[in-house]
């Protein structure tokens, strides 16, 4: 019984993989994202400049040239080097924040759907609150109170972005609960935790997965924005921090496009690839969309 | 001249996995004041036939051949713009009751009247007056013109649909499962209403259904469709008394007979063929207990087995003699 289930799951994942491969949108997204992940992992090992290497006064705000391919910032640091080490920080924040968000969203969604009644009501009011409350002001206030560190940023993004996931997971849990096998398991006297983790979770998982991609996109954008507003970790140069410094140093008025464009382009590419993947997953998982 | 003549209609769907011959070489005709029942399992092409007549096929579908003569005018040759003035004015449709066929954010009066304004070139005010008259014709108070669709029950919505279909005094009404999803009482009311109006206005009526039992009292003629083809067509009484095609026999066996004697329903074994990989020979052969070699090899011709009684079956003689 179990081995059949595993085999079915394995086959489903394989089918999913081949759908991704055949879906151009998903493929482009995956390739771009993989590129950035590889850069984030291995890039910092091979860059010839130290990111904290302040240059000489004459190195400040240089346009792209033979030595500094993407030019230098107002402190004489190499932009490309910063970009590469920033990839690691930005992606790490995005990844961990998404993990927290998905964890909370799944937990609240499943509990709400599974237990129903008063618990459902309370959890859904809470979810509504997080859905309706303006995101950025909330994050700004939390980040301001907690202080600027990379971990606080991760925490703040994670804790404020789970509401949408909770909603979706709750709806799916309700429909799974309706199905017979859960009823049967309940009558056999299995505990709630067992039912939720063994029967409901595997069934809501595909949904969670599709949602993850969109949350990740939002998390990276949030990090960029918070850092830009001066709430980032000054000791770790994410793309958002680069943009913060660029803005503070007046790169726009100085027309130092090589300073403020590249970090933004990287953010756009990563977020866009997440968005493309999300769009494609939706298409693959809701075949109704495809046939019409 | 007949009101409507469909000759050798071929409507195919081109989908990603291949070509589906949803309607293949279908012919029938309809006279003024006459009613025709089009019966078959779902997916047999009955709805596609109806949508072909008014050219409302989904974009994958296309008419590949045949003629659709409405009082001698071949509708199959018209483009969408030319077709627009025939739709509703000459041929109107009543869709399935369960369908969401009425616009939820528009008052039903406006929905009926807009068609009158379009085709009869009258003012909205006059059209609304006429819409009220029609509503009374389907036995509903005219003040309900001001209501929205969600304020009606299923049966009432279906009456509104019929009123709407009558709006422009069409020559033909096509009912696509107009009473499916309604309870038996309401079903009978709706069908009686259509009957009454058809006779009153001398309209042609095509009733599409999967339920043979509702046709007995309603239709003059019945055509049985299977996998995109008409396998048997005859006058109602003749068809019920002397069904020839094995498929027709099975269908009739599927519902309780008229004397109220509830015979055990005899389901039809097997499933309709995969429309992408049609069998060679007779399409029903794989499910037919009488099938022999010839049935699996060649497509049967349509033969006239009695007055206005046509059957496409190799075994028609045996079938008649066997009874």
């Amino acid at each position, binding site marked *: 019984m179990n081995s059949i289930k595993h085999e079915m799951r394995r086959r489903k994942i394989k089918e999913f993989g081949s759908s991704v491969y055949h879906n151009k949108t998903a493929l482009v997204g995956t390739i771009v994202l993989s590129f950035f992940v590889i850069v984030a992992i291995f890039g910092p090992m091979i860059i010839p400049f130290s990111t904290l290497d302040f240059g000489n006064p004459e190195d400040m705000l240089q346009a792209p040239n033979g030595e500094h391919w993407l030019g230098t910032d107002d402190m004489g640091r190499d932009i490309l080097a910063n970009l590469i080490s920033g990839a690691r920080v930005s992606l790490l924040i995005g990844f961990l924040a998404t993990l927290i968000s998905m964890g909370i969203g799944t937990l609240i969604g499943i509990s709400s759907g599974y237990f129903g009644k008063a618990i459902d009501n309370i959890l859904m009011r809470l979810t509504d609150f997080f859905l309706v409350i303006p995101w950025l*002001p909330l994050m700004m206030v939390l980040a301001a*109170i907690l202080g600027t560190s990379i971990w606080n940023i991760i925490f703040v993004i994670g804790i404020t972005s789970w509401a949408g996931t909770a909603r979706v997971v709750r709806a799916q849990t309700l429909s799974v609960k309706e199905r017979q096998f859960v009823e049967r398991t309940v009558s056999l006297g299995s505990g709630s935790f067992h039912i939720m983790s063994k029967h409901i979770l595997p069934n809501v998982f595909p949904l969670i997965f599709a949602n993850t991609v969109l949350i990740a996109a939002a998390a990276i954008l949030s990090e960029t924005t918070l850092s830009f507003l001066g709430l980032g970790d000054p000791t770790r140069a994410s793309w958002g921090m680069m943009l913060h410094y660029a803005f503070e140093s007046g790169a726009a008025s100085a027309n130092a496009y090589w300073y*403020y464009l590249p970090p933004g382009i990287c*953010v756009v590419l990563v977020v866009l690839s997440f968005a493309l993947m999300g769009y494609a997953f939706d298409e693959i998982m809701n075949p109704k969309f495809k046939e019409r | 001249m007949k009101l409507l003549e469909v000759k050798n209609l071929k409507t195919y769907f081109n989908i990603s996995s291949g070509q589906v011959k949803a309607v293949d070489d279908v012919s029938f005709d309809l006279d003024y004041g006459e009613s025709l029942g089009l019966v078959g399992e779902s997916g047999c092409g009955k709805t596609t036939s109806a949508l072909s007549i008014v050219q409302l096929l989904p974009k994958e579908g296309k008419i590949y051949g045949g003629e659709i003569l409405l009082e001698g005018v071949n509708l199959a040759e018209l483009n969408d713009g030319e077709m627009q003035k025939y*739709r509703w004015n000459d041929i109107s449709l009543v869709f399935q009751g369960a369908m969401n066929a009425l616009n*939820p954010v*528009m008052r039903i009066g406006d929905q009926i009247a807009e068609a009158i304004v379009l085709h009869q070139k009258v003012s909205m005010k006059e059209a609304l007056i006429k819409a009220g008259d029609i509503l009374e014709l389907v036995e509903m108070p005219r003040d309900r013109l001001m209501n929205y669709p969600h304020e009606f029950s299923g049966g009432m919505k279906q009456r509104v649909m019929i009123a709407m279909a009558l709006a422009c005094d069409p020559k033909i009404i096509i009912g696509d499962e107009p009473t499916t999803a309604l309870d038996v009482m309401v079903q009978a009311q709706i069908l009686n209403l259509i009957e009454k109006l058809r006779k009153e206005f001398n309209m042609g009526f095509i009733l599409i259904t999967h339920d043979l039992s509702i046709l007995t009292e309603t239709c003059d003629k019945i055509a049985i469709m299977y996998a995109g083809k008409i396998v048997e067509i005859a006058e109602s009484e003749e068809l019920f008394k002397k069904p020839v095609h094995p498929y027709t026999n099975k269908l009739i066996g599927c519902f309780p007979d008229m004397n109220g004697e509830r015979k055990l329903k005899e389901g039809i074994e097997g499933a309709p063929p995969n429309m992408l990989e049609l069998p060679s020979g007779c399409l029903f052969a794989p499910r037919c207990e009488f099938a022999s070699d010839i049935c699996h090899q060649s497509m049967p011709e349509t033969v006239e087995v009695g007055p206005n009684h046509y059957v496409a079956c190799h075994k028609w003689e045996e079938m008649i003699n066997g009874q």
Partner: protein
Amino acid sequence: MRRKFIIKKTMYAIITVFIVLIFNYILFRILPGDPLSMIMRNPRATPEMVDTVSALYGLDKPWYTQFIMYFQNMLHGDLGMSFVYKSSVTGVIATKILPTLWMLGMAEIIAIIVGIFLGIVAAANRGTKIDVGTLGFSLVTYSMPTFWLGIIMVSVFCVGLRIFPVGGMQSPGMSFAGEGAQLLDILHHSVLPIITMSILLIGEYALTMRNTLMDVLEEDYILTAKAKGFSRKYILRKHAVPNAMLPMITIIAINLGLVIGGAIQIETVFSWPGLGSLMYESLSARDYPLLQGLFLLITISVVLANYLTDITYSYIDPRVKD
């Protein structure tokens, strides 16, 4: 049914506002950054000063008394004193409301009109270049940090092309010939922030409109309309668009929270003297009472706006569902 719906929505709105108040209270009193620890951080603070501040904020009273005090002050519109402006938070906020309303209002109007129009054109020409272009535009603007687009706009139009003035709402130190000239100056300053804000919204509205409309076009009543002999144009205008507009209203309301996030960034980049840049300022200066006041105002406005949308919706849509 509508009454039940309104009562339910009103109850939910009240509960949400209440959660906002409690949340706000906890956030600023119990976490670091409460008035006491602010004053304690001052090395010259004497024990007497600490006591005075405690008494002033009621910090020596039990927590429920404190909460009631906080609530009473709130009802009187007393949000405390701003550290930076040395005046009442309510007063400081009041002067900044109009510029933000003007900027956001104009941007929303432009975005709604253009977004809906684009969405309709894209859905009606599905799969064509217009459709793909609209999709691409929506995806790219969705992926863009708002402030970054602002920076690009400033450097292209203000620094590079010099078409628009850099920053602010009025040219500093200028004497105007009359009110007309002053108004013109304000308009001139408004163009870029408004356009930037609307660009970000257009993509979202266009995409939503496109997808909703495409779903509507698959509905059965569209087939009915076709069967009635109407042209594509008429069906789109009279049957499809009105049905697609209803979900749009909800999307616009839900989006309000995001719009405010965008306003904070755009006002910061363009030095627009509104609530957004005030929030940025209070954040940089760690002016907690001001930050708290702004946060409260913004969240409650968004909750109320959503509530009003729900109620309006129940009157526009003939089918009010629970």
